[in-house]
């Protein structure tokens, strides 16, 4: 027997500090270019531009743009620049919405399916991102954090792009790339060394929280704590610069303003955050309603910028976003609306009770600080070297968002039915609660034929739990009290629990391209326990196959195995009632 070492960090992991040195060496061979915007305003980098505009009191705006090709996208940028100029304003920067294949090496790109967004395929394309119009690109996606971290960061810097992300994407899986999580994070850490070496030239690591683990958190305090963790890695451990953005998943304007100023409170003086994102989750197909959402969201974000002068831009999203990729004219439209709101906003700033907002901010900061300290403390106890960026990033990636928040987040403030209520519930969590209530209401009065004969065990194969919990609510409404197995449940675990519980059915929620493999193994495990019970699957019923560019629909395969495929709560109820689905 030997002493066990942590399962989290492989023994043969390279030293993260040496990777930073290797990245810095690449930095010595890289010259940071100059963008058209910076040239126009006589500054060397976007950071200097932001600082200059902040000093002048300018409200900055940014847009999301990304059409099928770079050529289409470049034409859209030119058009938008021209039309906004005609309307008397300009947009400061843009977020390129790129194809995920940008994150993988060229050989892997050939095997991967095309996704929404352009690719930058030549040196000219890279240069054109900064020279097409005096609008500064922020290359937030598929850059640092991806398997192509080093190459993309070097190309972006050379072209004059100095805000490069996306820190939060280090936990993403990239299409058709066969490398390991270690390989991906190694590349990222090298790129961070490169970014650190160019900090004096304005190189800034960019993070958009809603693209990463925070999107799965239930508590806004955890958002802040996670931002502190990213700052710890980038600022304290690596010595680079980090700029954080946030907002797309939050529609509560007060909480959004409070979270924004909490993020600003932990931002170093020499840093300007990139942008605050308009909410998109409240957008619906009814575009008229979206105007209201947009107006309120933008007003609060603008008020915060006017009062605190952070140097961050506001990012309005076209009201059509829920139904299609917005056209250039729709982007112009939403910026026109935003500029009109900005004209009225200054008159409102002094009528706003900022002390109330700051009180929420301070509580968020307290909660976030505790999250951060517990996380650092916990990683240290797991044997993670707290000065090695590779170990830090790999450890949190492997733990995952759910585990990190449940292990290191603050205790819930109360009980909300069958689950705990976070201290500062995120909008995502609150939306889930609303959905649960709606399901319960919709099913009120309906009954199952014999609810007492059902003993149902519910499980999620991955991190997604809201779907499982909504089904649980539906069953409860029909007098069937399900047993929750939890998230990330494996077939052997689920079968054990089904056996102990004397289950009559197991219901599996799955989303991550594993439905068929999981079902096959689950059926084997149930058979090994001589359990002949109903097996129901819901969620995204697809499977990753070797050689396939995207996960394939496996609903028919599941049916062939005898699994009941459920595409709605009604299907589940039908299956339980013995009806064919």
């Amino acid at each position: 027997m030997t002493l066990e070492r942590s399962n989290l960090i492989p023994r043969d992991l390279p030293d993260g500090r040496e990777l930073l040195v290797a990245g810095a060496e690449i930095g010595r061979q890289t010259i940071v270019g100059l963008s058209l915007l910076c040239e126009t305003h006589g500054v060397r980098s976007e950071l200097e531009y932001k600082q200059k505009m902040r000093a002048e009191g300018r409200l900055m705006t940014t847009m999301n743009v990304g059409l099928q090709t770079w050529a289409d996208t470049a034409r859209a940028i030119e058009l938008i620049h021209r039309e906004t100029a005609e309307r008397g304003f300009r947009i400061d920067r843009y977020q390129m919405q790129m194809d995920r294949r940008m994150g993988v090496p060229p050989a892997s790109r050939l095997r991967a399916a095309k996704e929404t967004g352009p690719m930058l395929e030549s040196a000219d394309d890279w240069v054109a991102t900064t020279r097409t119009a005096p609008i500064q690109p922020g290359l937030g996606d598929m850059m640092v954090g991806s398997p192509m971290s080093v190459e993309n960061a070097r190309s972006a810097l050379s072209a004059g792009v100095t805000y490069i992300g996306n820190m939060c994407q280090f936990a993403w899986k990239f299409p058709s790339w066969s490398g390991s999580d270690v390989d991906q994070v190694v590349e990222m850490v090298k790129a961070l060394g490169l970014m650190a070496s160019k900090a004096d030239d304005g190189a800034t690591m960019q993070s958009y929280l809603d693209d990463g683990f925070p999107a799965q958190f239930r508590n806004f305090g955890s958002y802040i704590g996670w931002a502190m963790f990213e700052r710890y890695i980038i600022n304290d451990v690596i010595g680079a610069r980090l700029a954080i953005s946030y907002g797309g998943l939050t529609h509560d304007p007060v909480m959004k303003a409070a979270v924004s100023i909490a993020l600003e409170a932990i931002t170093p003086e020499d840093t300007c955050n990139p942008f605050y994102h308009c909410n998109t989750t409240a957008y619906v197909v009814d575009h008229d309603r979206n105007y209201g959402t947009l107006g309120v969201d933008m007003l609060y974000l603008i008020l915060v910028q006017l009062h605190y002068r952070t140097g961050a831009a506001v990012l309005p999203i076209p009201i059509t976003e829920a139904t299609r990729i917005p056209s250039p004219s729709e982007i112009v439209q939403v910026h026109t609306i935003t500029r009109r709101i900005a004209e009225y906003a200054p008159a409102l700033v002094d009528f706003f009770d900022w002390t109330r907002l700051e009180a929420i901010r301070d509580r968020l900061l307290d909660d976030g600080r505790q999250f951060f300290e517990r996380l650092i403390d916990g990683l240290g106890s797991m044997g993670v070297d707290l000065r090695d960026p590779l170990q830090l990033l790999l450890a949190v990636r492997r733990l995952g968002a759910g585990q990190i928040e449940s292990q290191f987040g603050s205790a819930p403030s109360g009980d909300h039915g069958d689950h705990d209520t976070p201290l500062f519930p995120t909008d995502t969590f609150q939306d889930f609660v609303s959905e649960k209530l709606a399901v319960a209401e919709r099913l009120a009065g309906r009954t199952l034929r014999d609810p007492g004969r059902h003993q149902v065990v519910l499980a999620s194969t991955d991190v997604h739990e809201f779907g499982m919990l909504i089904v649980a609510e539906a069953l409860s409404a029909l007098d069937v009290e399900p047993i929750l197995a939890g998230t990330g449940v494996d077939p052997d675990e689920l079968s054990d629990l089904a056996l102990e519980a004397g289950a009559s059915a197991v219901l599996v929620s799955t989303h991550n391209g594993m439905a068929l493999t999981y079902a096959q193994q689950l059926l084997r495990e149930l058979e090994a326990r001589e359990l002949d019970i109903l097996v129901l699957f819901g969620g995204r019923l697809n499977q990753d196959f070797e050689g396939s560019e995207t996960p394939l629909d496996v609903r028919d395969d599941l049916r062939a195995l005898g699994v009941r495929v459920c595409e709605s709560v009604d299907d589940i109820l039908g299956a339980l009632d013995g009806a064919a689905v």
Partner: protein
Amino acid sequence: MAMTRLASRVQVEGAASTYLVDGQRWRRGLLVDIGSTFTKVSVVEPGGQIVDTAMAPTTIEDDVVIGITAAVANLSRSGKFEWALACSSAAGGLRMVSVGLTEALSGRAAALAALGAGAKVVAAEAGYLDDRALQRIEDARPHLVLLSGGVDGGDEAGILHNARQLRKLSGAPGFIVAGNAFASNRAAAELCGVTSAVELVENVFPQPGTINLDDTRQAVRTLFMQHITRAKGLDRMMVELRTGCEPTPLAVSRGLPMMSGSHSETVVLVDLGGATTDVHSVGSGSTHSRGVDLPVPDVMRTVEGDLGMRWGAPGICDAMPDGDALREDAEMRRLHPSFLPSTTHDRVVERRLAEAAVGVALERHSGRVVVRHRPWGDRYSVTGKDLRDASLIIATGGVFIHLDEPTKTVRKAVMGVSDAFVPRNARILIDHDYVVYALGLVAAHSVAFATRMANTYLDQAEET
């Protein structure tokens, strides 16, 4: 002869003073721990102070009372005792088999319950017992079998099948039935036909995400006193001292919470013996978020059967990254368990073995990251007990009496663990007076008096 000598020192006679606690009058008392090698006795004053301790070789093979009498004779002060309480881990301790429906859930809960009740788990079975499983149980020669299976309202067939199978065991050990509340009474009824030593208690795994060990502990104590002490030759001692007798680790588990200041602090005890190393902890039962996980009990005991200072010394070498350097010394200790260190080299080896054993035992007891390799990728999770905020580590065992700087050894052992949730800033106490088992014995009768004893001890104790 021996009984006469003991009686003259122990029997109830006029008290010098009394102390009223919890409605009871506490006078001077004697606490007895019959270990496999030594019998330890402690004298408790009415105010709760342990004023005297002594030991003598255990004589369980012959007459356990001889060893007790000798230990009492070794006390520095003689006097009369108004009451006595006793525990024992002699003659191999309490041997139990745990049986559950699944290994990971009710099976694990049953094993934890047996360990927490002070037993040595000599076999752990799960699933529908077949004849081969019965043979393994038979071969393990248990004193007790703990039968669990099914959450309350869940599976009934498993526990009923297993009860019917267990009827076939020859030698009829005692049974504790702690499974699905809707089926346990029928399972117990099956077993009542073969022995009178059957206890029906609350389910150890009553519902997903819940573990319940208290009731089982109490049942073990009852069966141990009623049925097992006689087999171990402890019955005469019980008559002599007018006391009961329970497994020593059970007393330790009950005593440890008394050392937890406000009863909310996490406290850890490491008992480094010759053959095994026990770790007990109270507090910091881990949070769990999934119904498929069995929670970690608040009061938990683990036994490292491969780590001991004499018979278990080679196992320590196996667990050390550089253990080969000590292998020769370890082997010598295994062959000569009565060895006492005398040279500087002996003491250095003793310290290194103790440090490694404490570190490994604490690491195994504490929470950690585990990885599950699955076709859809590795899953990482944090499981187990988070002891980082423990306020106190108590180290006990003969080795700590001989070490020059026992506290330093324990601290170094803890600091050497880099990837588990072991205590970080805990105060370290060396339990020279074997106070924890004493507290546990008293707490079974009066928590208030045990608390008084603990407070008195902690007020006086200094980090050594």
